[in-house]
């Protein structure tokens, strides 16, 4: 039992570590709320990587060439790897992998709302790489310096690999834009569907994001949702021009005074609806994960049985 006096000392040591921009490591004392906030954020991030395999995995068997199939396989395998790095980081906070999987399947923990949108055409593979992974990179680069050591280290590995994801997507779209009118129309139609959901990936606006202030004080987040969203828009506009597509927002315009782009109002009702479980694919995504977990049980069991047998021999 830690006495109140000890706890105050531990807390001031924790605060001093944060103030020095030093990292917190798993065996350090930390406030319970810091631990809970991290479990929620890292688990959501891990679940997003795992669920994120589904929309693109949908196209592996229908990729138009062996080259595109190999790229897509490698990318989806990376997403699995990213999920594993992040699950490991979450587990250092005292949660088990089984608990995390169960919380994903029960809906107690969320994943990014973007993966509840369907991939209707092959152009979506390119758009996801360009816009969805582009938005993810925007979010993740600052997280490499997050205050919890294992999370930051996982983010460094992930960011190195995400760059391949974004570039392969953009190159795929460039190839289609050099193709037929029909292919160009496919790209535009895909961008039209994914633009607004990509902006929603940065989360609710700052005035509706109750956790941001505390997360920033603890060094878990270093930028607000709206700051990162603005950065993403400013980075993406010239990429859209180079690609030759139109971003579906009539209010999108350069603001000379702000030295940034103005953009239209996001449909926050849609955002909250999808987060709340009522998006186009929520039920399908979780059902698929749940089935994979159940279908894989015999493999996990067989591997454990084999290990026990080897140990006994």
């Amino acid at each position, binding site marked *: 039992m830690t006495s109140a006096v000890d706890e105050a000392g531990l807390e001031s040591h924790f605060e001093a570590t944060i103030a020095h921009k030093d990292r917190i490591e798993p065996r350090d004392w930390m406030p319970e709320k810091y631990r809970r906030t991290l479990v929620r954020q890292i688990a959501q991030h891990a679940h997003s990587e795992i669920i994120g395999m589904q929309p693109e995995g949908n196209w592996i068997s229908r990729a138009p060439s062996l080259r595109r199939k190999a790229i897509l396989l490698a990318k989806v395998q990376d997403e699995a*790897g990213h999920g594993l790095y992040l699950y490991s980081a979450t587990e250092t906070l005292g949660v088990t992998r089984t608990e995390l999987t169960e919380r994903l399947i029960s809906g107690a923990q969320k994943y990014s709302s973007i993966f509840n949108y369907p991939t209707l055409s092959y152009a979506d593979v390119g758009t996801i790489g360009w816009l969805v992974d582009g938005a993810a990179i925007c979010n993740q680069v600052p997280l490499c310096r997050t205050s919890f050591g294992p999370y930051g280290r996982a983010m460094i590995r992930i960011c190195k690999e995400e760059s391949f994801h974004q570039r392969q997507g953009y190159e795929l779209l460039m190839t289609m834009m050099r193709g037929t009118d029909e292919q160009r129309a496919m790209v535009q139609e895909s961008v039209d569907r994914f633009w607004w959901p990509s902006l929603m990936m940065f989360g609710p606006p700052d005035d509706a994001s109750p956790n941001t202030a505390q997360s920033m004080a603890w060094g878990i987040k270093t930028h607000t949702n709206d700051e990162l969203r603005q950065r993403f828009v400013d980075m993406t506009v010239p990429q859209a021009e180079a690609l030759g597509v139109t971003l579906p927002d009539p209010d999108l315009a350069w603001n000379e005074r702000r030295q940034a782009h103005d953009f239209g109002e996001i449909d926050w009702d849609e955002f909250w609806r999808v987060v709340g479980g009522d998006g186009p694919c929520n039920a399908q995504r979780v059902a698929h994960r749940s089935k994979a977990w159940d279908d894989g049980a015999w493999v996990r069991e067989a591997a454990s049985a084999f290990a026990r047998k080897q140990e006994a021999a």
Partner: protein
Amino acid sequence: MTGEVRAEWPLYEVFVRGKRGLNHVHVGSLHAPDDAMALRHARDVYTRRNEGVSIWVVRSDAITASSPDEKDPLFAPSGDKVYRHPTFYSIPANVPHM
């Protein structure tokens, strides 16, 4: 039987030698049913892009650790021994190769 299925595979820590001449460095952890599977998983999870020429895996429960906290008394003995560092000794500037 359900109990056995639900029991998690043990946790392993993974160390990768980036290239010849370097130490193995801790890169992360993973779950695996046994040592051989841990090595295979480590290859798939941590070396998809030629990150290593050699991998070590070791069960996490086999590691004895100090607390990582820098205030740990374990590291106190080295804290006041500045004479262990080369900069403790002042050598005239005209002495070469020192």
